[in-house]
């Protein structure tokens, strides 16, 4: 079976590098409370947010009005938020234990949601990427969580088509992936500015919305790479996964790292030529697992998850995973989900008997959507 062969080779490469021995003892023992994932129930034709246990059983499903996208958990509280897929018309705050809807947010006039949200470390503020669609301007909506998620303002996202946003370790700086693509709800998901798109990674002071830094790709061709998803890496670095918006036969690197310092450029992460082609110009989720020394990026169109080591940013191999997109930290590494209902712990450091007991499950008639999130214990 392709997955096993690839994984063996991958494990072998890790062991050869001396990484294997350091990993099993440094597992994420605290990440045992399971996962949250958006998904689709094919039997009932309903979009969902679901909570999975650490055993990968479904604990609860909450039906959504339409397709969801990403989910965030409010720090130190028993609730999370799921945001509609763009052009999103809802975001639902839910109870983590029972999966009950607590509050439904709708976009401000002239805005729609882009699918991602992030909370402040104290859980008092929440920010969402939004579209000021008539102006074609990306904005970050600011919500006072303590006032019932009241929208208390907005500021520029520093670009067009903002997608994922993250809070840096300083608890103050937001990093925003401005995909660069202009859309308007009147024309659905149609891309209106591919010819002139200019994606960016923006650093924004969350206290006042000041743009404190931004990074662009250098060449016009590279600027067709829409920056969509990110992960925070140790040392203040950011990894981004891109989606190529044109098909001209060029095979470009899709995963880049920025060191977080203003004035520096992206650095493309290495990928063997044949594998680069397999990414099919499209990255799904980006997750960093510092304790496992792994950065993982999924490519549902390529049907694989690629891995790099965080310490030296070298390519470490891949696992074939058909229609896989969602990635989350798992007990020992990376949990991946797929559109065929599969969940599998793609733990790179497992070997021998442990590997044969792969932590995996397939939920029939279930399609796991783009993103998932690990819950801390």
């Amino acid at each position, binding site marked *: 079976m392709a997955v096993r062969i690839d994984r063996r080779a991958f494990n072998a490469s890790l062991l050869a590098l001396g990484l294997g021995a350091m990993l099993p003892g440094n597992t994420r023992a605290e990440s045992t409370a399971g996962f949250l994932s958006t998904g689709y129930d*094919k039997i009932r*034709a309903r979009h969902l947010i679901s909570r999975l246990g650490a055993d990968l059983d479904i604990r609860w499903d909450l039906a959504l009005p339409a397709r969801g*996208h990403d989910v965030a958990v409010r720090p130190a509280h028993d609730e999370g938020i799921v945001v509609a897929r763009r*052009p999103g018309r809802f975001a639902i705050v839910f109870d983590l234990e029972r999966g009950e809807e607590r509050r439904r947010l709708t976009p401000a006039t002239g805005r729609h949601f882009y*699918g991602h949200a992030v909370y402040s470390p104290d859980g008092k503020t929440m920010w969402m990427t939004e579209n000021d669609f008539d102006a074609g301007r990306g904005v970050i909506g600011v919500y006072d969580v303590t006032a019932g998620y009241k929208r208390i303002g907005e500021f520029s996202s520093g670009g067009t088509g903002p997608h994922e946003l993250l809070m840096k370790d300083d608890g103050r700086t937001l990093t925003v992936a401005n995909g660069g693509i202009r859309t308007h709800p009147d024309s659905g998901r149609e891309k209106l500015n591919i010819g002139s798109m200019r994606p960016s990674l923006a650093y924004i002071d969350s206290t006042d919305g000041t743009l404190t830094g931004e990074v662009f790709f250098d060449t016009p061709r590279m600027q067709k790479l829409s920056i969509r998803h990110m992960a925070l890496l140790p040392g203040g670095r950011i990894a981004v996964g891109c989606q190529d918006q044109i098909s001209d036969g060029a095979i470009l690197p899709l995963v880049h790292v920025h060191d977080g310092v203003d004035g520096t450029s992206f650095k493309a992460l290495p990928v063997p030529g044949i594998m680069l082609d397999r990414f099919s110009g499209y990255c799904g989720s980006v997750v960093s697992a510092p304790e496992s020394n792994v950065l993982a990026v999924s490519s549902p*169109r390529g049907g694989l998850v690629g891995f790099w080591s965080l310490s030296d940013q070298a390519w470490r191999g891949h696992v074939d995973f058909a229609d896989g*997109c969602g990635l989350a930290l798992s007990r020992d590494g990376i949990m991946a989900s*797929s*559109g065929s209902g599969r969940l599998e712990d793609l733990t790179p450091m497992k070997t021998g008997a442990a590997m044969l007991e792969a932590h995996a499950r397939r939920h*029939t008639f279930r399609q796991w959507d783009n993103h998932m999130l690990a819950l801390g214990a």
Partner: protein
Amino acid sequence: MRHPLVLAFATAACIQLSLAAAADPPDYKALQSAIYDHQIGPGYALFADKAHILDYETIRHCKNTGDAPDMLAVRSKFHEALDAWQAVQHIRHGAVAENDRHARLQFWPDKRGITERHMRKILAEPASDTLKDDIAASSVATQGFPALERLLFSDIALSRRAAPGEKAVRCRIAEAITHNIAAIAHELKASGQPTNVDPKAGVADILSDLVTGLEFIQSLKLKLPADKEHPRAHLFENWRSGRSLRNVEINIRALRELYKRLAIDAGDDDPRHQLILDQFQQAEDNVRAMGENGKSLLSEDKGPVRIRALAGTLESLRDQIAGTMPDRLKVNLGFNSLDGD
């Protein structure tokens, strides 16, 4: 050794397949529109009409003959409305996938008996005056056909007076449910062709519905109740109204029509499409010969075997279609890889 003619035919078929596979992709917009205009749109329109008639008949029954045990007329309209829903049940994209409409119309399968539990609870309390307005926000298990079926195919009359041991008036609950079914059906009819996906993704959604539909029927509507080790008649869809296999017959006919439109009407003249259509037809003939009532058939000597054989035919159709149509239509059946974000 195989007969040379067989080999020649196989070779010709392979050439034809490779030619077809290398051909230009279909006009996705035209194909999506044709399927919407000729099948989905009319299907929803018919369902909306039949649901409206069911609602009207339920009101009429409760107004005029509410205390009489004869529920024949309203049962007849129930069957007609459910026929129309079964003809579009396989559609799982667009408006029906929003606001939980699919599950609100037909919450099934229901292995844990949630509908039964909720209906008992509802009947044990006086129905509120605003039930008709509130029902759309209540449990999905109480909103659609399975809940209504419990009221219409019961020994207790659909009456304007609470039955002994119950506090709710059955007519009031039935009217709320038929009103809700009619409202959802109207929303589906009014929704029009989905515009928020590009036509290629729209065609992929339709193909995905076809494949999922076949899987849904063979696995849940047939194999589950006719399980070799543990046959369980109460796991049939709509067994109370004795129409589990009538549902399947309608489903197969609708999926055959959908396949025909996706294959032949898309301009692909590969002769193997006709072979698949013939298998659909054979499956439809087989299920018709079994009668409408799956529960009865299950208790017959050869009944379980016949049901499982039909499931096998549908499984084979699913495999053939899932194995060939994505390449032929040049679309991807993947959920995440289809139209990402």
